[in-house]
């Protein structure tokens, strides 16, 4: 399994619509609206890198998404 965080910057005024569309995308585990340099942090779990590309592609096609940064998880410690 490949896990990744996708950090998203969005255009102002479109957040509701963007979140609604993001929630429809498969393989997205968690959507966090954040305050800071980015606007939304998405956690993705996919089987292959190709599927990760598909998720990123779908995110970028949502109207209002300005920029995405993908951070692939190499190692993890969690509760």
């Amino acid at each position, binding site marked *: 399994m490949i*896990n*990744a*965080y996708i*950090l998203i910057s969005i255009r102002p005024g479109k957040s509701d619509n963007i*979140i609604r569309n993001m*929630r429809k995308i498969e393989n*997205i*585990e*968690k*959507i*966090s*609206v*954040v*305050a*800071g*340099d*980015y606007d939304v*942090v998405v956690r993705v779990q996919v089987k292959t890198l190709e599927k990760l590309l598909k998720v990123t592609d779908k995110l970028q096609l949502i109207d209002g998404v300005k920029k995405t*940064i*993908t*951070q*692939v*998880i*190499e*190692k*993890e*410690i*969690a*509760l």
Partner: protein
Amino acid sequence: MRIRKKYLFYALAFTSAIVAAGVSAIDSTISNLYIPNAWAFGFSCFLVGTFISLLIVIIFSIPVNNKESLGTKIIDPSFKRIRLVRKEEIKFHMIAGLGNAVLTLGYLSLLSILGDPSTVLPFSQIVILYLIIIESITEKNMPTLSEIQSSIIVTFGAILVSISLTGSISLEAFAIVFLVVNPAWVVFSIYQRKLKLLKIDNRPNDSLNIRLWNVIFACIITTILIVIYDMFMGTGYLIEGISASIEHFNWVALTMGVTFFSYVFYIRALGIGKASVTQAVRASAVLFAIPFALIVSYYNVIPPFSTDPVMILIKIIGTILVILGIISFALAMTKAYVFITVNPGYPIDETMNKLWNIRGVTRVTATAGKFDFIIKIRIRTLVKGYEKIIRKLEEIEAINKFKWESVLKEWEDI
């Protein structure tokens, strides 16, 4: 049958709460009808519990395919098979076992005094009051207003529930609640958590072996406590406990078996959903204890409930206060992501462990991309985020820069 993860989570968390309430009714029945002595009952619980837990863990160790066992598949993905206790676990197991032994003896004494399980159960929720006090002392942090508010609501709620059955307050019961049960519960939960965070053979420690070894250690410690008590007081509780274990094996095995599954459902729910929501849902055990108390009262195991409307109202208000207090405490958490870039020349594993050791950090991920690490944080207030997290991050030499991103809202596919 396929079930949505979200429904599975709620099903597990509520089942755990209902089972916990049911256990208190079984305990009440055993305490009132068969083993009235709390020492003998406590010893019997751990003696029979060791046998039952061992049996359950052996069953869950049955391999279902090359790599997985029954327990891996349906209970805990970290579980492989039954194993011996590891050297690094012994210290934690001894302290957690002591906590569990004292907690159980205190809880059973409380049950023999109060009788009504719906009165005893809310007292366990007062533990948050102690956690806040400990945090304030050890970390020199003033508790926040919402923390004080929630803990006071829960404490007074539990006190109200305890008044309702007979209309009087038992000072002995209060002393046991505040001086024995809850301090022991704090020790038990802190060290149980420490055990869960240990890594065994590069895998997270599994809940089944933790539970099994906790019961074994608690059994050893209870035996030592009872032997000392018998020697000084001239009582024969050890013998009484052994004969009660044989005589009422079925009842004690039932309560310990059901307790095991309540614990397992709880851990499983924790693995699927958020800890705060699981804790909040589990607080509903206080509510579920009422119908169980009515059943045991119907069969004359405990004295009948007061029919005085004022007493009934007090019980309802007390129950609502306990649940509300726990829910507001559990759900009022601040979450954040911290994106970190590090300087070259520092080993990744070392930095990862340093980040993981910061209290409030729930997830550390080493990532490829613009940032080297992304950590997830869960704290009660933003002020504590500064005191607990930022200061500690600044102490880590390897860190070059970090960005704090507070989570405003979150959706999770559970």
